[in-house]
């Protein structure tokens, strides 16, 4: 017997012992009669892990019951296992935990009410964003340089734009601009070599 199998076996023994002590806990409150098949063996292990992955460990930070080593998570997993062995189906088991912990306990919000927003909000936002971009592109086709509106900004005609050779009238500013051009472009004294030619 492997240690894991031994641990699982002892959980089952403990679980059945617990039921003997607390017979009132036997019929799971509020989720009705088992709707699925009574599982056992490897199938039971697999379904326990699957459902544990859909349950939030209440004492952890964003971990599922399957992923958490906390005692609480182990207890919840044992509860899932026990319910699966009795034949409760996934939805019944999730509903059982939801009754005590609220919807918070489900890591996958059920598709109902405002939760539709969680499921389809991002897709809707993506589509809406694409539509806005398409609309904006259609509305303002790229015009050849030379004025008009581009992307919503008013662009003055090219003739209004300062050429790279022009300098401000203010002598101090003009000197500064020339110095920047000298440093940036390597123009002697900040004057374009083409300007003289």
């Amino acid at each position, binding site marked *: 017997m492997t240690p894991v199998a031994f641990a699982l076996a002892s959980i089952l023994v403990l679980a059945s012992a617990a039921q003997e002590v607390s017979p*009132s806990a036997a019929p799971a*409150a509020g989720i009705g009669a088992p709707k699925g098949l009574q599982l056992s063996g490897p199938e039971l292990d697999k379904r326990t892990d699957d459902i544990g992955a859909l349950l939030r460990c209440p*004492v952890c930070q964003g971990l599922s019951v399957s992923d958490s080593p906390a005692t609480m998570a182990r*207890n919840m997993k044992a509860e899932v296992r026990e319910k699966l062995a009795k034949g409760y189906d996934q939805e019944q088991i999730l509903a059982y935990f939801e009754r*005590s912990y*609220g919807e918070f306990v489900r890591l996958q919000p059920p598709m109902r009410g405002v939760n539709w927003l969680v499921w389809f909000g991002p897709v809707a936002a993506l589509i809406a964003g694409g539509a806005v971009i398409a609309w904006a592109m259609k509305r303002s086709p790229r015009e050849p340089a030379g004025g008009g509106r581009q992307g919503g900004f008013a662009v003055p005609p090219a003739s209004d734009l*300062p050429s790279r050779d*022009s300098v*401000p009238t203010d002598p101090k500013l003009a000197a500064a601009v020339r110095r920047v051009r000298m440093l940036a472009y390597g123009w002697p004294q900040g004057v374009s070599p083409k300007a003289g030619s």
Partner: protein
Amino acid sequence: MTTALTSHPEPAMRRSRVNPKVLVGGLVVALPLLAVLVANLGRDPHSVRSPLIGRPAPAFSLVPVGGGAPVSLEKLSGKPVVINFWATWCVPCFEEHAALTAAARGLPDVQFLGVVYEDEEARTQEFLRQRPSAYPSLIDPEGKSAIAYGVFGVPETFFIDGSGRIVDKYVGPMTRSTIAALVGRAKEGAR
């Protein structure tokens, strides 16, 4: 910024032209998100209102620490019940222990119960030997009752009215006045 350095007049683009449609559209998207953010700023994301409030308390039948006949909730119906989930490793539980014991002595018409959460029976027994309690503490094998009550941590206390309905849940250590106020509500609920 070259425009600032040239002799040319500022083009029209400098005077920002807000597209009212874009502004309204942006506000429609941003304001609700901002409202949700502001409304929840002071909230602990882990404090979830218990869905059990107003519903029948989950049944249990648990053996007290040190052994004895199982205590079951059904047999207590007709009387308001206070169920306190606690553990010896929980410092706030230690702080609230005296208040709970005093409250239990002062309110003989209310049944106080402790449920031991994720702790060893021997340590619990030792704790109770040093600080006697006025009410039984029950052993919860595999935390089944803690799960049924949706316990997130300790201390958490449930107030149940005479008809077996959960009236309120308190998270964290309680003082005598808190206990008195919540017991009062459980008593009202019974009427």
